[in-house]
């Protein structure tokens, strides 16, 4: 029944002499939360960068639905329905929370470019409401007029998540969405991501925190030194001796 929404095929990427990704394959099914784990420097972030067009791979292809993403510019990839949360939150610090979320909503509605100098922002009620709802979803609705730059680190991550969610992307890529968060905030983020999952949004998530990974992931891919060493359900991965060795160092899961 399941169909593949994201297909990464035989991707290679070398930086100077360093082989960041070598012959990586990744298939993500529709509606699934797919975690990519691995030790530092395993190539996880590079893999996401390849998906969103930040890095062009030396070899191989990335296909989302029926569109080839490799070689496309980031804004075109986003317009196809791929949104990304970065490892360090990329938000608009000088704008208010509401504006921060209205902008991606506008991108969804208006496309990559629209020149409308005579339309007033205040008349964009739908966009505004949508942005408010999404901010409510992530628990930031109380400070619509606050400047995003003044938020705490955890709240910035939540804001960035809201900025992605408001676009209802077909695929959401999350790069360590809970890094640097307190346990309490981490749990709130897990709850939030679980709620999104119920809406059928496909997610690829990079995460170090095994608590997060095993609470959310339906499938896990393990990367080490740029290659996929194992893929499967959480239980399969947990039991795999290669994973124990490469990543977990024999740590008890």
């Amino acid at each position: 029944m399941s169909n593949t929404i994201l297909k990464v095929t035989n991707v290679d990427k070398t930086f100077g002499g360093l082989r960041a990704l070598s012959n990586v394959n990744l298939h993500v099914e529709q509606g699934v939360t797919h975690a990519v784990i691995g030790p530092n420097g395993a190539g996880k972030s590079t893999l996401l960068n390849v998906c969103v067009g930040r890095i062009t791979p030396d070899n191989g292809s990335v296909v989302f639905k029926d569109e080839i993403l490799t070689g496309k510019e980031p804004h075109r990839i986003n317009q196809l329905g791929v949104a990304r949360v970065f490892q360090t939150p990329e938000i608009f610090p000088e704008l208010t929370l509401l504006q921060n979320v209205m902008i991606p909503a506008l991108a969804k509605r208006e496309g990559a470019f629209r020149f409308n100098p005579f339309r007033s922002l205040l008349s964009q009620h739908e966009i505004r409401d949508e942005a408010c709802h999404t901010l409510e979803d992530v628990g930031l609705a109380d400070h619509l007029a606050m400047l995003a730059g003044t938020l705490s680190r955890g709240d910035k991550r939540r804001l960035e998540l809201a900025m992605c969610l408001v676009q209802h992307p077909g695929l959401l890529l999350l790069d360590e969405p809970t890094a640097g968060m307190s346990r309490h905030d981490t749990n709130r983020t897990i709850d939030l991501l679980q709620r999104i999952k119920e809406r059928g949004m496909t997610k690829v998530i990079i995460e170090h925190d095994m608590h997060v990974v095993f609470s959310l992931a339906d499938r896990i891919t393990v990367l080490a030194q740029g290659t996929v060493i194992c893929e499967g359900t959480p239980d399969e991965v947990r039991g795999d001796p290669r994973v124990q060795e490469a990543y977990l160092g024999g740590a008890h899961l």
Partner: protein
Amino acid sequence: METSSPRRDLIMLAIFIAAVLTMPLWTAPIGANYPDLLQKFAIFGIFAIGYNLLFGLTGYLSFGHAVFLGVGSYAAVWSFKLFSMNVLPAVVMGVLFAGLFAAVIGYLSLRRSGIYFAILTLAFAQMCYNLAYSVLTPITNGETGLQLARADPRILDRMFFEADVGLPLTNLFGMEMQGYSGFYFCAVLLILAFFLSMRIFRSPFGLKLRAIKSNQVRMSYTGFHTRPYMMTVFIISGMYAGLAGSLLAVTDPLAGAERMQWTASGEVVLMTILGGAGTLIGPLLGAGIIKYFENIFSSFNDSLLHNAFSFLPDGVQDVVVGIVSLFVGEGWQLTLGIAFMLVVIFLPGGLMEGFRRIGALIARRRGRGPAEEVERP
């Protein structure tokens, strides 16, 4: 966030229109109520508003905006020479040609951002300036500057009436564009320019420009193609400068290459920063102050100062005049420089930030609780 509401904007626009149209009255006490200077206020106001759309909204620091001012002037004078002394075709020509130049320079310069963009625009500006002096002499008339001549064809005018004996004057369907009528023509265009800028500030387009300033990486991963946005606003900004340039020619029909020099480009940067980049009114304020300094402060001389300080005893008077005269007359730029430094150091948001702080202070004194969220236009 938006303390701006349609109603507030309407009030602001109404006040602005009233202020511009009554300018000859309220500038009288500061001695600036002569048409020449008033025209300059309006013209450089337009220039600064346009520059602010680029620099204030997107943060792209163009160091070559005077090119568009110069191009606007040349195009307008050519329109006077070839077609008609009517100012409308001249203004249209000025705006169009400036837009064209902006498209070319923008296309090339906008490949880079930050300091590289600034240097590229500066390089193009200096190139245009030098070309205007050298190889383009047939078009620009080199050092002499482009001037009207009796023998100019003026095709459209010739169709309706015979050439005058003397040099013709610029006019709007017979109304001569010198003195106060010239000022009011500029004032009307200033109001239109301000209105358009206000609409851009309040539009989704304007919000996206501010987002580009804030985080361009996020913009592209949010699905926006930032290049066409930058191109559009660069061209609009260039057209504003072209409009200002053509108005310079309307009020005084000659054009010289010095209008394109980098000091002229720097001046509009100063105006915008002094008043407050990214605010609606700030750049206008900056333009007004700089033009006021340039024209009024520079005209103060020693005898005027002696009169002003005549109440002091002789010896003291000489000392005071000696010190003050450093800052006026030839030294007006010293005053301007100090004022600019003070503003940048203490009010990074320009004079508008100063007003906002004072406003917040008064509001707090009145016990209206905490200061309102400051306006981010």
